[in-house]
């Protein structure tokens, strides 16, 4: 088991290293003159030269690459052109908000998606089944930013039952920071009012973000269950007199869920991408809003750092997913990759 985890981690490394190289190439080669870009429109040649020396842009490209790699490995992403603060610090501060939103979305998607898929498969070609088919295709076709605006329009502007934007009410304020997760920190501080308010703020963005995941999970649970139902051991269990519910819960679901777990890893990418637009719309103070802000202010250091951090988070999630798969179904480790 430990060996398998180690092997998976080692497999993720080359891609991440490649990503560092790619971001380096992007930041140094694509802009005609990075120093001029940094200096801005009102740059004098003297200022550009100064910046070039300051950032080490006057050294040979290979030396720059090594320096870049060392900086990235020590978590030094430079300073944001926009705020002047270290990018790493800003990202760390914003990461929990994005993770909280992503986890909430993943939670909704799983808690609703698995039962929906199961019921759809058990009532193959029934009403729920057709509903799930529509949902599983429609959920992936809907533009998250549009859905977010439509939900805001209905639930915040017209009905006025859920907050329009933000993470907690300004009047209440953020709870003292322990983990960075509002729902956790508010409970730690014993502030139940903030917890409830945090939940209310989370509803719309999390639902928006969960839809593609919900669609995918429901779909894969459905096809996984349908496939498992045709297996011999299910026939045997049925012949042995197991009831429908017991059969579905013990025999079928566990076998079907392996497929779903793989999807969660792939979904995480969709969730992070979706979070960019969704966060921007709900004014959610996470990495997504940070990335959008970086785009608007042409802050390429911040943008590349976000790209790298997302890549790392993505890799970690996929390793975790593979490990979870082995826990559920040990045969996976035997097959290798």
């Amino acid at each position, binding site marked *: 088991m430990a060996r398998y985890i180690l092997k998976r981690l080692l497999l993720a490394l080359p891609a991440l290293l*490649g990503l560092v190289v790619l971001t380096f190439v992007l930041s140094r080669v694509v802009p005609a003159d990075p120093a001029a870009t940094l200096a801005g429109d009102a740059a004098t040649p003297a200022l550009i030269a100064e910046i070039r020396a300051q950032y080490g842009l006057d050294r040979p490209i290979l030396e720059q690459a090594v320096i870049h790699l060392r900086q990235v490995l020590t978590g030094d992403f430079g300073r944001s052109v926009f705020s002047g603060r270290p990018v790493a610090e800003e990202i760390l501060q914003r990461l929990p908000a994005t993770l909280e939103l992503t986890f909430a979305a993943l939670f909704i998607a799983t808690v609703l998606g698995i039962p929906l898929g199961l019921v759809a498969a058990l009532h193959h070609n029934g009403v729920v089944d057709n509903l799930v088919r529509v949902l599983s295709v429609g959920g992936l076709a809907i533009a998250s930013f*549009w859905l977010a605006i439509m939900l805001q329009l209905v639930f915040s*502007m017209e009905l006025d039952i859920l907050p329009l934007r933000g993470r907690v009410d300004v009047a209440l304020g953020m709870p003292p920071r322990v983990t960075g997760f509002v729902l956790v920190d508010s409970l730690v501080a014993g502030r139940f009012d903030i917890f409830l308010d945090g939940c209310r703020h989370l509803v719309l963005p999390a639902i928006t973000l969960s839809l593609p995941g919900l669609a995918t999970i429901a779909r894969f649970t459905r096809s996984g269950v349908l496939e498992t139902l045709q297996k011999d051991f299910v026939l045997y269990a049925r012949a042995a007199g197991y009831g429908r519910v017991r059969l579905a819960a013990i025999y079928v679901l566990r076998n079907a869920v392996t497929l779903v777990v793989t999807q969660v890893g792939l979904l995480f990418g969709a969730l992070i991408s979706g979070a960019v637009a969704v966060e921007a719309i709900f004014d959610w103070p996470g990495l997504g809003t940070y990335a959008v802000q970086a785009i608007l202010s042409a802050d390429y250091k911040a943008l590349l750092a976000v790209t790298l951090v997302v890549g790392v988070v993505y890799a970690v999630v996929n390793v975790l997913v593979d490990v979870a798969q082995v826990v559920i179904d040990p045969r996976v480790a035997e097959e290798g990759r």
Partner: protein
Amino acid sequence: MTALRLLLRDRVAAFGGLIVLFALVVAIFAPWIAPYPDDAFESHIMQRLRPPSAEFPFGTDNLGRDILSRVILGTRNALLVAVAVVVAAMAIGVPIGLAAGWREGWLSETLMRVTDVFLAVPQLILALALGQLIAPGIGAAMVALALTYWPFFARTVFAETRRLRSALFVDALAGIGASPTRILLLHVLPNAAPAVLVRATIGMGFTILTAAILGFLGVGAAPPSPDWGLAVSEARQHLPEAWWFPTFPGLAILLLVLGFNLLGDGLRDAADPRLRRSRR
């Protein structure tokens, strides 16, 4: 042809195909179908933000332009962008997949590791970074989307080539002296075509969606383009008064992407007999 017949028998997929066909017709004849074709560029401030009526079925936007006309004109943009991106991604990804799949060795390893790097970050994030660094605008956004989508084609073709290279007919071809280029282009590629077609169809839907997000975030199409994502973004400042402003461009995105996804699903089922059974 069996595949086509199977596809038509699958009602849901045929419905998807119908949507795509409809969008194609709308895109080709957009300037003639749109009630106010000049509204792509012209503004009429006097009639801004009018609700849907007989005169303007989808209402008017913040500059008094007919939203129905702009949705129709936007279809052309959305399809052009998606086709260009998917074709470019195919042009990069298919040869890489073929080369990497044919022989094992350092070339194959290098190509697939490079592919992994591009897959290590969600597509949108990479496209945002790329698009912004090249230059904001629809051209750069398209380059960025193509540069982030090719790995999916490379993966697909790689898997197909690996599967086919040990096939008996490939051995036979090599035996009678066919060159690797000939085998790959004339025999392996046509056999991989169904998988590539499925990938391309799904890629069309995905690209339309991602391009809309880029337009929404201000990295893609720029005003006064009738881009759907851009329209939704412009509409935000006029809510809750002008509900029709974001609604119709968003529905257009939903419908077109839905069409491609349904069609892609149907094609996948038709192309892969193993999956056919589970659908019924």
